[in-house]
């Protein structure tokens, strides 16, 4: 009779909630928010670069001119006028769509949640790049989807690796519900799917009867000026396209959208209404007015140059500090560099040492559903200044060199990278 119940609701939780536990990594990240730490961890856009006076003016105008409607419920598919503007955003990347094809969602993340809800029964197979965006993995696992990763290299997802996986699935009598991919400036790898591989992927989607989810948050933040064809343009009936204003305007405004074939779109609208009745009309109007009245593309260009400069700072410092010891991706755009540690070194284990040296990153395992990624880490260059980035890389390099020397002493490896 002495047992103390700290959670009297435990027997009521669904099975899918069982994995929700306190985590060491999350606790360690509490330290990463302190100002002493150079955080190369989070993927937060540099919203301080926005013209705050313009945002204020737009928001004020919305309330002044459309207050009663902006403060009212909206429709399940999203505001008509906003969908027209979002079509313009897609057109900036040469992507054609009609406003009726779009469903507005609460950020791209809600689209991932709704699609997982729509497609995934427990145990269903979902394909994703390896590594893959952690938020997508979270959405798939929340509906108990089983993720199989497809290897990628500096040109993005490897079509032949997809062949191998499809052969294995077919042999096992299984199929995949969809393949999730971020073809442009991928999170976390920083690379883009080459033009040839886009063709190859679409050809395979036909061959294997695969549905693709093309997530494109970073497309306009392109450092190389090489706009590659969108998968949705190549095969609109095989591809669900996801867009967002988070990286080109504001993540706080929570505007994303899905472009999907009509039957899927109708289901998404119903699911959206079930999830939250409707997108906030207020933020939809603010986004619509921003896109209609402000030079938003100039803002995107400003963001792009800012991120390019920060990316260059990171790459330069990495080459200076870790050129002998580690390898990393060279981003085509976006926010992230994917770094591979020397053989045997584990990025999750290394994190407390890094935090003691006042630098943070995200361990690679976060981007795999199957426990891979132990030797890798994601470094983001979107939020800290170039000088902070250089300092962060120097600190990280010190930690890696220190660890290499200790490993050599412990395991008797040939000594290297001791910095002397």
């Amino acid at each position, binding site marked *: 009779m*002495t*047992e103390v119940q700290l959670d009297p609701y*435990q027997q009521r939780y669904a099975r899918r909630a069982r994995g929700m536990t306190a985590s*060491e990594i999350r*606790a360690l990240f509490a*330290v990463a928010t302190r100002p002493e730490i150079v955080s190369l961890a989070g993927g937060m856009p540099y919203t301080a670069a926005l013209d705050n006076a313009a945002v204020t003016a737009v928001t004020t105008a919305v309330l002044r001119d459309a207050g009663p409607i902006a403060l009212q419920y909206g429709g399940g598919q999203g505001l008509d006028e906003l969908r027209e503007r979002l079509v313009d955003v897609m057109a900036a990347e040469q992507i054609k769509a009609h406003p009726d094809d779009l469903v507005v969602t609460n950020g791209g993340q809600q689209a991932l949640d709704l699609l997982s809800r729509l497609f995934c029964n427990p145990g269903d197979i979902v394909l994703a790049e390896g590594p893959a965006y952690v938020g997508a993995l979270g959405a798939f696992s929340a509906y108990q989807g089983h993720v199989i990763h497809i290897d990628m290299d500096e040109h993005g997802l490897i079509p032949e690796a997809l062949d191998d996986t499809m052969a294995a699935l077919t042999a096992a009598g299984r199929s995949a519900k969809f393949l999730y991919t971020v073809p442009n400036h991928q999170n976390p790898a920083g690379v883009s799917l080459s033009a040839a591989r886009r063709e190859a992927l679409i050809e395979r989607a036909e061959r294997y009867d695969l549905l693709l989810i093309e997530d494109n948050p970073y497309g306009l933040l392109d450092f190389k000026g090489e706009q590659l064809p969108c998968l949705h343009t190549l095969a609109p009936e095989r591809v669900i396209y996801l867009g967002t204003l988070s990286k080109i305007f504001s993540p706080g405004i929570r505007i994303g959208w899905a472009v999907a074939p009509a039957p899927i779109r109708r289901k998404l609208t119903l699911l959206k209404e079930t999830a939250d009745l409707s997108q906030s009309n207020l933020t939809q109007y603010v986004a619509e007015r921003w896109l209609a009245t402000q030079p938003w593309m100039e803002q995107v260009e400003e963001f792009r140059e800012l991120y390019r400069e920060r990316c260059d700072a990171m790459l330069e410092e990495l080459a200076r500090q870790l050129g002998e010891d580690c390898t990393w991706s060279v981003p085509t755009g976006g926010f992230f560099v994917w770094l591979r540690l020397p053989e045997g070194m584990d990025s999750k284990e290394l994190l407390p040492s890094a935090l003691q040296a006042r630098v943070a990153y995200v361990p690679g395992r976060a981007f795999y559903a199957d426990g891979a990624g132990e030797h890798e880490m994601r470094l983001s260059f979107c939020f800290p200044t170039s000088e902070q980035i250089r300092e962060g890389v120097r600190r990280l390099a010190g930690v890696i060199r220190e660890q290499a020397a*200790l490993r050599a*002493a*412990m395991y*008797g490896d040939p000594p290297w990278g001791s910095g002397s």
Partner: protein
Amino acid sequence: MTVAVLSGGTSFEREVSLSSGKRVTEALRDRGHEVVPLDLDGNLVRTLTEQPIDVVFLALHGQVGEDGSIQRLLDLLDVPYTGSRATSSALAWDKSVSKGMLRRHGVTTPDWHVLSTQAVREYGAGQALDRIAARLAFPLMVKPVQGGASLGVRRVEEQADLPAAIMSAFHYHSAVLLERVVTGTEVAVSLVDGAALPAVEIHAKEGAYDFAARYTHGATEFHVPARLADDVAHACAMAARAAWDVLGCRHIMRADMMVDQGGQPWVLEVDTCPGLTETSLLPLAARAADLPFEALCERLVELARTGGRGGRD
């Protein structure tokens, strides 16, 4: 009374500490105190000297709150604070020091060995791991010599896994403790002003009482008082009190121990700034002793204000 609740800081237990601090803040406000919640930062000295603070409530976990440094600063500023004084904190914080002191004074603690990064790097101590293992025998617990919340702690069943566990713990502190595993019942005995509260018996539902088991509601089964024979429960309370005396603690303390099949308590470690979160052990014990959390916090404030009994420096 005006109480500054200090929590957060840059230790690995920042999140746990913020959670303790928030709970303490609410409890003291409920009791009508003026509470100033403070995170540790460069303004601390100015804040504590410019504001009329009667007592500092230490809800800091991890190095900065438990290694004695904040206590020394508060002594310097003449601000009364809850918990043990600087030297006791520092002694308890370093597990190799505290275990040595406990053993020297006859408190039973499992055999151990300490290995530092310096010893590995500079004089090849990694090559003597088999000797350590032979002396202590598997299974072994590998823990950072300094640190809490089970961070960096691993149980090792065989020699092959030992180097990796040591390297893992080195990420949390530059020295690790290798400790013989005692099989039996895991209990924690908390003391408030030197008096033992009922022992808390701990059973993690899945595997070890690790970080997730500590801080996830419902992941661990607790029994308070522990299901121990009266004489064994008494022995546990005596062991905890002996640890309190040996280390010179004051106000509050928690001793973690294993009770073996013969009913012998083995003290594993002593925490001078124990967790005060919703899943923490000391508040569970206090509740079982009819000491609600609000009353516990207020009692500690009162002890700090009046000096309390015991406590050396």
